[in-house]
């Protein structure tokens, strides 16, 4: 990817974000939507940031950052939980370890951990369960070398399901903590 195209992309991104913001001001009463909600993932953003810091892109985009290497455990950004549990499952240990190592090696990097619950039971109690999941991941990350200041946690309870079904398959997808890099 040459510099002109990269610059063009950056311009587009800025324009998109600006459009998103003005759009928000017009429409929203509660305001405050973030970039993610306008359809740009944090992954794309760090991709461009990484490319810019290197001065050139390598033409594939994917190799620009280890965060975006699909073969790295760092590419896994969602940790799933068992019912009524905030224990980090065996199959997600390596993912948490990889993110902890990355955060330890990049002390300027910050992340948000979003905790979620499935729809069963009362909403406010599920908000607390979502927080418990986000905090469990944070505790593990800090134990493994990240600093607490790098990690912001937020719970959305059952308010932002990924899967809409009312079955165990959907519930399993909704009981999660999402990692997003800033």
């Amino acid at each position, binding site marked *: 990817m040459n510099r002109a195209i990269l610059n063009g992309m950056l311009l587009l991104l800025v324009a998109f974000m600006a459009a998103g913001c003005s759009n928000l001001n017009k429409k929203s009463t*509660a305001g405050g*939507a973030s970039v993610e909600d306008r359809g740009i993932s944090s992954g794309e953003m760090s991709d461009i940031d990484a490319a810019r810091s290197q001065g050139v892109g390598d033409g594939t985009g994917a190799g620009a950052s280890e965060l975006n290497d699909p073969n790295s455990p760092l590419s896994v950004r969602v940790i799933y939980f068992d019912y009524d549990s905030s224990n980090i499952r065996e199959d997600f240990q390596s993912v948490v370890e990889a993110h902890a190592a990355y955060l330890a090696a990049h002390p300027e990097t910050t992340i948000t951990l979003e905790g979620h619950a499935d729809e*069963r039971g*009362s*909403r406010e109690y599920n*908000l607390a369960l979502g*927080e418990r999941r986000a905090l469990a991941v944070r505790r593990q990350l800090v134990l493994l070398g990240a600093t607490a200041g790098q990690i912001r946690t937020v719970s959305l309870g059952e308010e*932002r399901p990924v899967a809409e079904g009312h079955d165990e398959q959907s519930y399993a997808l909704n009981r999660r903590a999402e990692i997003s890099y800033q």
Partner: protein
Amino acid sequence: MKLLITLILSLCACVASAQTGGPLTIRITQGVEGALPIAVVPFEYAGPPLPQDIAQVISTDLTRSGRFRTMDREDLPARPADVAQVNFKDWRTVGMDNLVIGRITATADGGYLVEFRLLDVFTGKQLAGFQIPSHVSNLRLTAHHISDIIFKTLLNIDGAFSTRIAYVTVDRKDAKNSTYRLMIADADGYDSKTILESPQPLMSPAWSPDGNRLAYVSFEDRNSAIYVQDVRSGQREKVVSGIGINSSPAFAPDGSRLAVTRSLEGNPDIYVVDIASKQQRRLTSHEAIDTEAAWAPDGSAIVFTSDRGGGPQIYQVSPNGGDAKRVTFNLGNYNSRASYSPDGRHLVMVNGGSGFRIVTLDLKTGVSRTLTGSSLDESPSFAPNGSMIIYATMGARGTELAAVSIDGTVKQRLALQQGQVREPAWGPFRK
């Protein structure tokens, strides 16, 4: 801050005028045996058509309560407007116990005078009769007031037909894009208005005791925060925010304080917040989850959900602090979101087992009663007269609202035309 409020106000006004979504439709799914037979005669009126059919609204109200059996209009043996025109024998013949007649007249100031009489068919006596000044935009409310009077006269229970409900609706486009709306509607689902719209989740609406304000949780700042909004003006204020959870607001009976959930130190506890001064006092202090506070109507106690015993159960604490004592025993391993009946005698809560149901608990006798039988029932809220409980349940197209009488004999569904409807909160009596 002032600018922000002005901005929000203008945006709210914009939203209110552009609100979408039809009224809730109500379906009686189960009625009570021995309902009182009553006939509501169309009110006499000469003039250009009115936007509301008052007699129809009254008739629907009474039917919806499950306590009355109303007569279809085409079956009415006569359509009197004055007592002198009533032949009581006609009404006894068709099995009616009571009869409602009335008249609407336009007044010089552009309003209306609604006159009605409630008659006992057997004695021929008038049981109630009122003249109520109304306005074109108020005719539905006037009809609900008349229903309240009929209910009180015949059953000696304050009617809750003229009350309102608040609830949250969600229009989901995809996993990342949804529109959340905080709505208010009449208790029969009509006249719904959007009072707040957001791309981020809205939760847990709670009425102030005077019905003028709503407290709720909004995620517009990328985290939960508690707002209090004036229902009429739309003016709102952020009352509790900061790191961690800020949620589950419940007005104290005096309206000056909120019981809330905060997780400042990494786990949720109950705090009491003075709305004017924002001063906060911590009420519980336990490493478990403490949330979903609700006040006793006399302000003497607060119940809340805690999993300090392993799973979620209901506990009670004095609003002045002190030890919490467990309230729910032998009711399974999941009890949450409890609130008091208006007389303070019962709790209603979500009880989990093979599914999640609405259960009441008599605090005096310890007797519990399972009122619903679906699998995902939640967010129960008592009517201010204590006769019904509104709650959210899973319908064919997602969550919808339902109501059940406290003895479980009358059931209704309130389905919105579009979107998901959740977290109903039944407002207080209107002054």
